[in-house]
């Protein structure tokens, strides 16, 4: 059962996302705090990360930079599921192309089944 590391600050959203992905056949480990998520990743070895960008202690982009700084996690698939649109993010940063993001989903217009499909696709690609 593929293990998903979910980083999301809101309990209700995390609960719904987690329940949906579990029903889709994944094991889900949830953290609100990106620092705790990094420490957990060392222990549970997730196969994929689903990440919000607006977090509390550090931003999702900071988390991604840290994640990619570790050789063992440079190829770990990451899916962004955020309330910040890609266009808005591009206005602040140079985009996330250099951080190897598998897919970018904007929360207001992405259904949970679409997120689950994206997770499955990213996992398949990572196993090629």
């Amino acid at each position, binding site marked *: 059962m593929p293990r998903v590391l979910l980083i999301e*600050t*809101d*309990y*209700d*959203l995390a609960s*719904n*996302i987690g*329940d*949906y992905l579990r*029903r889709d056949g994944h094991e889900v480990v949830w*953290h*609100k*705090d990106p620092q*705790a998520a990094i420490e957990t990743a060392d222990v549970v070895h997730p196969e994929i990360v689903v990440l919000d960008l*607006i*977090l*509390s*202690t550090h931003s999702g982009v900071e988390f991604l930079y840290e994640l990619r700084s570790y050789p063992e996690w440079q190829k770990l698939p990451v899916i962004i599921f955020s*309330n*910040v649109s890609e266009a*808005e993010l591009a206005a602040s940063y140079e985009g996330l192309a250099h951080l190897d993001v598998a897919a970018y989903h904007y*929360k*207001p217009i992405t*259904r*949970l*089944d679409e997120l689950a499909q994206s997770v499955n696709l990213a996992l398949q690609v990572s196993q090629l």
Partner: protein
Amino acid sequence: MKRQSDRGFADTEQQRAVLSALSDDLALPLLQIKTTLELIDGSKLSAKNSLRHAKAMALSTEAGLQLIEAYRLALRAQDEAALPLEPVAVGAVLQEVAQQLTPYAKSYGTTVEVNLQGRLTPVLANKQSLAAAMQCLGASLIRAQAAQSESKNHRLMLGARRSADNVISTGVFSNAQGLSDRTLRTARSLAGRARQPLNGFPAGTASGILIADMLCGAMWQPLRAAAHRNMHGLATAVPISKQLQFV
């Protein structure tokens, strides 16, 4: 002379900025409802789970509507003539707000307490504005501290005390990190321009604080960082009415 960011929200541009922050934060309850409906769509739920999801959606709906109502009240409050003043028992208002917040707080693993210190004589205020300010500030701090900590148990305190110089200060206190006069000033200037006007506070929290700030600023003083019984938060101060001391 006070800086603009110390005076709270008084002008149209800043009202628009708070509206922008509000529209960002209203996405949270709507996303909660949306994802709940997507989760239950097509699945066979037990009566117990159906009820649990329905209650969660009801709380999200109420949270969003309360934020909108508080903002509308804040806009009306900018026009002083429109707001009737009356003798208000601050302690009683805090008790009512605590009762209203409790179901929402429980969904975030938070217990709500009221702590009153000193003799709290009635003050001249707009009761609806005070209640709305404490309610949306409380809801924001509930979400903020729950998002900042991996702990499953949190506390929220609605506090009031009378100082030696006969001022009653009242506010909301929690273990949310990152609230200071400086971060609040920065938030006032960043509202509408940044997705996270309050550094360290997650999405869905800033506008409640800024709206409470508007409401308090219209009545007495904008919010200031404060502490109460070893908890930190934001409070406003209201002078005691000399006439009401004898009521």
